[in-house]
C-alpha cells in the first residue's frame, strides 16, 4: 500500500469532502495563501478558490463564532485553529454556543462544525505552545472529540468528522504531521466513537490515543523483548463518545490496565477513562489502574526538562510492569 504523511492524509480528507459536498468550507489563519501553518491545507485555495478556503485575521473567537453561525445556517464549516493553544480564545463560542445549540433549541438547530488543528507538544516550544487540552472539550456534553494517531486514521476520521451532524473537535498532534504510514487509495471512513486495537496482547491493556500511541507501541515492543510481557495497545481514537465496548472486551482478556496520555494528570480524559475502568470493570481487574501523564507542570523550554516532562517509553514500561506486579 502507498505511504503518505499524516498532513497529506488530512489534506486528502479535506479535498475529498470539499469535492463531495459544496457546503463544506475551510476557514482560519493562514489556511489559504500561506497553504496552512502546518501545510495541511496545501493547494486547497487553488483547487477550491477563495470563497471556500478563507484566510482570517488573528481572531479565534470571531471566526469560531462565524463558523457556528454558518453551521446553524446549514453549511459545514471546517475551522482551522493554528494550534489549540489559541483555540482557548474561542472557548466561549465552542462551549456556550456550538455545544448547546441543539439542546437549547430542543433539537431544532444543528451545528455541524469541525474545529481542527495542531495540539500537544512540538519540541522546545515552551509553555504557551505545548499543551494537550482535549479534556477541556471532552468535558462538555454536546461536543465530540477525535484525536488520530496514524495517517490512515487521520484521513478516515476527518472525513467522518466533517460528515457528522454535531460539533467535532479534531486535534492533530503537532509532531505527527510528518509521520508517514499506509493509507488506502480507495475511499473509506473510520467511524465516530470507535477505537482500535493497534497491537494484540494478553497481559496488560494500555489505553491511549494520538501521539502517545507511538510511545506505547515502542514500550510494548521493549516489554516483549525484555520481560516477555504481551501488551495490548488500545487506541481510543475518539475520546467522546468513548468506545466502552472495546475497553471492556480488552480488559476482560488482560485484567490489567494502564492509561497513557500526553496531557496533565489532574481532571484529564485519562482520569475519566480510569474511573470508568475502575467502576465498570472492577471485578475483572487484577491490579489498580495505572496511569502515565505529562508531569504536572507547564512545559519547560529547557532541552533536558521537556523530555522528562513528557511520558516516555521508560515511564510507560515501568507502569505496565507495576500493573503486572513485575
Amino acid at each position, binding site marked *: 500500500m502507498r505511504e503518505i504523511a499524516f498532513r497529506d492524509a488530512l489534506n486528502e480528507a479535506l479535498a475529498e469532502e470539499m469535492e463531495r459536498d459544496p457546503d463544506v468550507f475551510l476557514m482560519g*489563519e*493562514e489556511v489559504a*495563501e*500561506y497553504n496552512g*501553518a502546518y501545510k495541511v491545507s496545501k493547494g486547497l485555495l487553488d483547487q477550491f478558490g477563495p470563497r471556500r478556503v478563507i*484566510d*482570517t*485575521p*488573528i*481572531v*479565534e*473567537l*470571531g471566526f469560531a463564532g462565524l463558523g457556528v453561525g454558518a453551521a446553524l445556517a446549514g453549511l459545514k464549516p471546517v475551522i482551522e485553529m493554528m494550534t489549540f*493553544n*489559541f483555540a*482557548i*480564545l474561542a472557548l466561549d463560542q465552542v462551549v456556550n454556543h456550538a455545544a448547546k445549540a441543539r439542546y437549547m433549541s430542543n433539537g431544532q438547530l444543528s451545528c455541524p462544525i469541525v474545529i481542527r488543528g495542531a495540539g500537544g507538544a*512540538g*519540541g*522546545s*516550544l*515552551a*509553555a*504557551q*505552545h505545548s499543551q494537550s487540552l482535549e479534556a477541556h472539550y471532552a468535558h462538555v456534553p454536546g461536543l465530540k472529540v477525535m484525536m488520530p494517531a496514524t495517517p490512515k486514521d487521520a484521513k478516515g476520521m476527518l472525513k467522518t468528522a466533517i460528515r457528522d451532524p454535531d460539533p467535532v473537535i479534531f486535534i492533530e498532534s503537532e509532531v505527527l504531521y510528518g509521520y508517514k504510514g499506509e493509507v488506502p487509495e480507495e475511499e473509506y471512513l473510520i467511524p465516530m466513537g470507535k477505537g482500535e486495537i493497534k497491537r494484540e496482547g494478553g497481559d496488560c491493556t494500555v489505553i491511549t490515543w494520538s501521539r502517545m500511541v507511538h510511545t506505547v507501541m515502542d514500550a510494548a515492543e521493549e516489554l516483549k523483548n525484555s520481560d516477555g510481557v504481551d501488551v495490548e495497545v488500545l487506541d481510543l481514537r475518539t475520546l467522546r463518545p468513548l468506545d466502552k465496548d472495546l475497553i471492556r472486551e480488552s480488559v476482560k482478556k488482560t485484567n490489567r490496565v494502564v492509561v497513557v496520555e500526553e496531557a496533565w494528570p489532574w481532571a484529564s480524559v485519562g482520569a475519566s477513562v480510569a474511573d470508568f475502568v475502575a467502576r465498570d470493570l472492577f471485578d475483572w481487574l487484577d491490579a489498580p489502574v495505572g496511569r502515565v501523564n505529562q*508531569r*504536572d*507542570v*507547564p512545559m*519547560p*523550554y*529547557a*532541552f*533536558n*526538562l521537556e523530555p*522528562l*516532562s513528557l511520558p516516555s517509553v521508560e515511564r510507560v514500561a515501568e507502569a505496565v510492569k507495576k500493573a503486572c506486579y513485575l
Partner: protein
Amino acid sequence: MTEKPQARVENIDRDRGHYLLHQMLRIRRLEERCADLYAQTKIRGFLHLYIGEEAVAVGVIDALRDDDAVLGTYREHGHALMKGMSAESIMAEMYGNVEGCSMGRGGSMHLFSKEHRFFGGHAIVGAGLPPTVGLALADKMLGRDRVTVGFFGDGSVAEGEFHESMNLAALWQVPALFCCENNLYAMGTALDRHQSQPDLHLKAASYGIPSIQVDGMDVLAVSHAARRAVAAIRDGSGPQFIEFLTYRFRAHSMFDPELYRDKAEVEKWKERDPIKNLTTYLRERDLLTEQEYDELDQSARQEVERAVEFAEKGSLEPVEDLLRFVYSEPEEDR
C-alpha cells in the same frame, strides 16, 4: 485626536546619537548571532527576529525610567536588552540554561525579569494587552507615577483582547503607553488582508485614546514621540497610543519561506534600515566618524560574543527542579 506622522524633530548631539546607534547595533548583532545559533540547534523552538524594527524598542524604552514596566510579544529580545537585561541572561535563556533570565523555562518567547520590570515575553497574540492595562491600573490605584508600556504587532489589533483592553484603558484612564509595531504583516497575511481600517491608530483613537502614527524606521522620530507620550502619561493624562510603521527584514520565524511578499519590497524597506538611517544622519552632520562607527559596532559584537561564551559555559537546570515553582514554595508562603 489623531495627528499626522511625526517628522524628525529632535536635535541631537554627538553623545546621544552614538548612544542610540549603539543600542540598535547591540540588538542587531545579538539577533544575527541568534540566527546562526539556531542553525546549529543551540537555540531551539520558535525564534522570531526583530531585525529591521530596532528603532522602535530603542526609541521607546529609552524614554522610560527603570521603574516603568514593559511587556512584549514573542519578538522581544530587543526590548529585554533595552530594558537593561544583560545579553548574557538573554542568550543563556535561549540556550535553555539555568543562568537564563527565566532559568531556561521560557526560551526565546518568554523572557522575564522582575528586577528590570520586564513582564514577558507573551506568545499568544494580543494576550499581553490586558496585563498591560492591569499593571498600569495597579500603579494608578497605588498612586505611583509609573508608566507601563505594551508592545504588540498589527496582528493583535484583530483580536478581541485588543479592543477590550483599549476600552478599559480609556475608560479608567490608566497610565499605559500602547506601542503598535505595525510591520505590515501578521505572519503571512498583509495588513490590508486582515484590517478593515489599516490606519491602526484610528482604531485606538475611536476609544478616546490620544493616538498618533510615527515612522518606526527613524529612531529620532520614535524617541521624540515616545518622550512626549510618556511625559503626558506620567502627568496623569491617561493612556496614549503610538502606531509605529516599521518592517521586519527577516522571515516571521525560522520556518517561513516568505512566499507572501516580494523580494523587491523587502529590499526597498532595507534602504530605510534604521541603523543606516541614523548613521547617515550623523555622518551628514559630522557627528560620527567611520572609526567611531566601527568602535560602536565592535563593542556590540564583543558584548554578543561574551554572551555566547557565557551561554556555552552554562548549565541546565537540575532535573530535580522540574516540578518546582508550579506553586509558591513554602518559604514564600505568607
